[in-house]
């Protein structure tokens, strides 16, 4: 296993040597609790309301009529990109609406389960062993 690339072909890494800022999912300021997490395409979210049969109704604070549909499709664990694909909604719209729904407590954002940067070694080793046992 190579430990480092030769200096000549190593590229400058953005933010190399700096520690990523601690990620706080919510900031309680400005008089309200606000969801502030970065929503990656692979970030997991799910509806908080587990009653499976009740159809979602629009809420008065809904920014857009698509919001109940997002809650509906999130009755099982979904990623941001899945919601976008399944509901035919632009990714940016999904991000804004999921952020709204998280603020309202109707959606729980689970995240990706790892930090904001590249996955660390232990995780990569798990992925590699998972692939090898497919």
């Amino acid at each position, binding site marked *: 296993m190579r430990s480092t690339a030769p200096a000549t072909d190593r590229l400058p890494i953005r933010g190399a040597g700096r520690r990523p800022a601690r990620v706080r999912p919510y900031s309680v300021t400005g008089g309200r609790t606000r969801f502030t997490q970065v929503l990656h*395409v692979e*970030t997991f979210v799910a509806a908080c309301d587990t009653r499976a049969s009740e159809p979602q109704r629009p809420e008065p604070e809904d920014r857009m009529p698509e919001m109940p549909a997002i809650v509906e499709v999130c009755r099982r*664990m979904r990623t941001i*990109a899945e919601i976008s694909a*399944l509901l035919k909604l*632009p990714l940016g719209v999904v991000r804004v609406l999921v952020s709204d729904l998280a603020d309202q407590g109707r959606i729980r954002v689970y995240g990706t389960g790892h930090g904001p940067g590249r996955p660390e070694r232990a995780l990569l080793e798990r992925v590699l062993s998972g692939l090898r046992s*497919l």
Partner: protein
Amino acid sequence: MVFAVSDPPACAQALADEPVQPWQYDRSRAPVAVKVLVAGGFGVGKTTFVSSVSEIAPLRTEAVMTQASAPTDDLSGTPDKSTTTVAMDFGRVTLADDLVLYVYGTPGQKRFWFMWDDLVRGAIGGIVLADTRRLRDCFPALDYFESCGLPYAVAVNHFEGSDAYEPEDVREALAIPPHVPVLIMDARRRDTVVESLATLVGHALDATPEP
């Protein structure tokens, strides 16, 4: 970037027929989600690659963009209000009950780089899918991955009837540094797709410092 499904019946079908994994109903916790990008020119086999390994029918999304878009350092100033649509497919592989890999196939042209900035955030790495008959098509993907320091591997999708090349020939033609993996594969065959992914993850591991 805008994603919307281009083919509604396929979408509905995907929603209905999707094989459900146990973790999808466990709302006490979510699995860890990791992702890999597959980039290359049109027709190089990105969709096939994703389909071969995905446990669900790949979800097809579209990025609608204006045609005149240009990268940051090359603003042409050419006006063009018409829009163009770019398909992006992604698939899913459950590696353990608490670990899921997503594979995103993304178009390789330089004008889509603005989309990649979003996709590379937190990614394990990228696979540059190459077709030896149109090797030029993968230059932008190589440039992009190199410029942002993302670990990448080159997978040469061998098409029947095209000349067979050795990995080292391709490495030389593409000026790939010696430590970057180059392999010959067939995007239709799941085993070679899995091998490509494993090669990339192994390379990313090599490039990740010990804690």
